[in-house]
């Protein structure tokens, strides 16, 4: 199987630079990184990709059994690293991809040399003595939201965007990202993401780790970022002024600068 085609892997930047891999979280595809990733092209070999079932990835490769847990997505990452033969890469994961990065770094410590976790959460649903920020009913609400919006996406949304003659790339983008997302796959990924519990894996991370915590992030609240920081020995926690869950979109300057600071301080 062609792994690069399967995951729509895009490689840019300096060929001899230290590899930096950007992984998108639940919701969208690799275009989420478009304001940040290019800034590392001068110094790094930059890799972006789509998880199977999203964006430009090969939807036919979606096997419900494989992707029934985060392990399947972790395998995607490991296979890409192997295919490109990347060593000592900096893995930047947003949202659920942050935890996927944690799992991958534990399994392939040689391949992943450093982790940047953007808005990570090891568990979204509250548990005894743990605040994840959500109840099980909240997650049902999200699934209902997803469901009711697919009518809009498939029927009404695409033509509207397509009708923007002055910014044709938007239509293209929408088609590539949302319209290609099979509702069942999106629903499945939502379940896997929001029902996951990776708390036990955090202490097993040995790579230098940066935790980027946004302000007022309803999805990964301050307490959750602090939890991740506490449970990964030697990790660095940086609070961003960026508000919401997507600092790479809302505050790309600040986000890129934080990543750059961390990367420059890494031992060579």
């Amino acid at each position, binding site marked *: 199987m062609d792994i690069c085609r399967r995951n729509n892997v895009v490689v840019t930047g300096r060929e001899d630079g230290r590899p930096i891999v950007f992984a998108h979280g639940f919701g969208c595809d690799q275009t989420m990184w478009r304001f940040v990733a290019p800034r590392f092209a001068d110094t790094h070999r930059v890799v972006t990709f789509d998880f199977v079932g999203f964006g430009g990835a090969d939807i036919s490769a979606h096997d419900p059994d494989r992707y029934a*847990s985060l392990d399947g997505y972790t395998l995607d990452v490991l296979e890409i690293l192997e295919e490109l033969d990347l060593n000592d890469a900096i893995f930047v994961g947003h949202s659920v991809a942050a935890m996927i990065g944690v799992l991958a770094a534990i399994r392939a410590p040689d391949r992943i040399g450093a982790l940047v976790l953007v808005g990570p959460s090891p568990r979204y649903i509250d548990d005894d003595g743990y605040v994840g920020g959500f109840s099980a009913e909240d997650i049902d609400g*999200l699934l209902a939201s997803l469901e009711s919006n697919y009518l809009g996406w498939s029927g009404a949304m695409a033509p509207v965007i397509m009708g923007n003659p002055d910014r044709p790339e938007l239509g293209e983008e929408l088609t590539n990202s949302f319209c290609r997302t099979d509702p*069942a796959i999106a629903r499945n990924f939502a379940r896997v993401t929001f029902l996951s519990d990776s708390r036990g894996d955090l202490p097993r991370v040995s790579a230098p780790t940066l935790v980027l915590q946004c302000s007022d992030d309803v999805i990964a609240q301050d307490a959750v970022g602090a939890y991740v920081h506490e449970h990964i020995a030697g990790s660095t926690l940086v609070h961003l002024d960026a508000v*919401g*869950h997507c600092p790479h979109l809302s505050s790309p300057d600040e986000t890129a600068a934080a990543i750059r600071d961390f990367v420059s301080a890494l031992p060579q």
Partner: protein
Amino acid sequence: MTEHGPGGDERGLESAADLYENAPCGYLSTLPEGTIVRVNQTFLNWTGFRREDLVGRRRFQDLLSVGGRIYHETHFAPLLRMQGQVREIAAEIACPDGRRLPVLINSSIRFAADGTPQSVRTTVFDATDRRRYEQELLRVQNQATTSERRVRLLRSAAERMASASTVAEVVSALEAVVLEGLPAAARATVIGLDGEEPPDGARGEHPPPGRAGAIEVPLVVADRAVGLLTVALSPAGALDDDDMDLLGALVLQAAPAVERARLYEDAVEQGRRAALSARIISALIQVPTVRERARLLEQLGIPELADAVDVVLVDDRAPGPEEIASLARLAMVDGAAAGPPRRLEGGIDRVALRLSVGPDPLGAIVLSRIVPRRFAADELGFLGELAERAAFALGNARLLERERSIAHTLQAALLAGERPRDPRFDVATLYQPADRHLDVGGDWSDVFALGRNRVGLVVGDVVGRGIDAASAMGQLRSATRAVAGFQVGPARVIERLDGFVESLPSARMATVVYAEIDLDARTVTYACAGHLPPALLTSDGDARLLWDGRSTPLGLPPDAGPRSEGHATTARGDSLILYTDGLVERRGEVIDAGLDRLLAALIRCRDEPPPRLLEIVTGELRADLPDNDDICALCLRLETG
């Protein structure tokens, strides 16, 4: 505003402010990260929020339900940032009084001259009716999809099950259909049950309610569980009511299919058993003795009947290991009162079946299977019938053996007459019964003195076998001695025997060679009634057949004239050999070949004394014959001294 009141002037033109505040949609302006800076009255009216609680205090996404907030963060905000605008996103506003207001949201970013986002303008439409309509559509669509999927699946299940002829095929069809029809199912397995009570009290059409992990659904036909379907769910999987209905319908279809396939398999199995039984019994009766039949039964029973088969006979001196012997004893005592004795120990399932004809036990057959292969209840009936038939074959062999033993005793008594002792000759006789026959044949030989100078020799063969033939042979032997008086001569002896067999039908068609030797003149006179010619082995190492004096078997005298006789002259040291056809006949070979072989053998052992000569020649000639016949032979040598 003017005296015409809020909402417009006399020409019906509206003021911009009024249009904003009371527009037919909600208006909000927010900072790029969501903080509300302006909101119109319509929005406040719809939701019940107070302006002072929102402006500068709340972000727009905070007004959404939790699910909607996640959706906002993961889809709405990124898309808005990437596209500059988003339209017709469905969401719910969580109103202060606890209501959820379904809305459709459009947003667009106002960019500064340098391209950085400055603010976001959002319009909100009340979508209560539309949402209800959409939900109805969704529900109907889901139902339609579900019911179409169900119908398709049930039809394909029906087809697959109809074409499945074995339980295994029905089971694998059901497993495949379940996996196909239930996306949440990771694994489906069916085990066959044999009409047991449905487990966990679950009976009837409706499977138990779904639970995480796995569910079990019995396949029930008329209150009997014929199988149990276990569906293991994938980690994130769960079954809804539709899934459970579908599962119930599939199981309803599968249960009778399993039952039907089982009946079919039973019929096939019964045919197979009948064929097996016929094959074993017809092989058994090909071998003669009880012991051989018992050993053959042990061999033929593996592997179809069991992994090990032991036949223990009542008079067996070595009945095998203790557990087999004790099971066999139980079988012989208990009969079939409460089923055959059976033991399961050491990973071996053993059952012992009595072998008997009538009330007397012949023995028992002990069948052993290595677990997990075990004896099923319905198999014991078949094995019992097979044991009955095998016992019949063994019993027959025992009867035949008894008869043979009686006949052999009789024959031995008949053949054990005194042989004349005379220094002028040395005589030996040999009788060897056929290997394959249980019962005796009608071959005999005799030597007797006829006065001082003559000796009579006879070898004969009565047609048939068994006690009848043996007794006819005995009478014919006595008759020959009686009719071969002094000076009667071979031809007349045969003629008198013709008369004798008229009153003894079972001796008719017997063949006889009769010879008289004059010990002084050393001449031989002989007559062959349908019998093979005598052989003459001379002292100088030549051997020949005496072909004269031939006529028809006893009871069929020649149409014209008397029986004929032949003459031969001998010298000291010559030997005369009489024999029955068992010595020279071979199936598929002309008799001449056997006769040549006889002469060659005689020449080779011409120097042996008569008893040894007969042994060697007989041994050589029958050595490689599997289907040999009885042999009776006689050799008289004239002494050289």
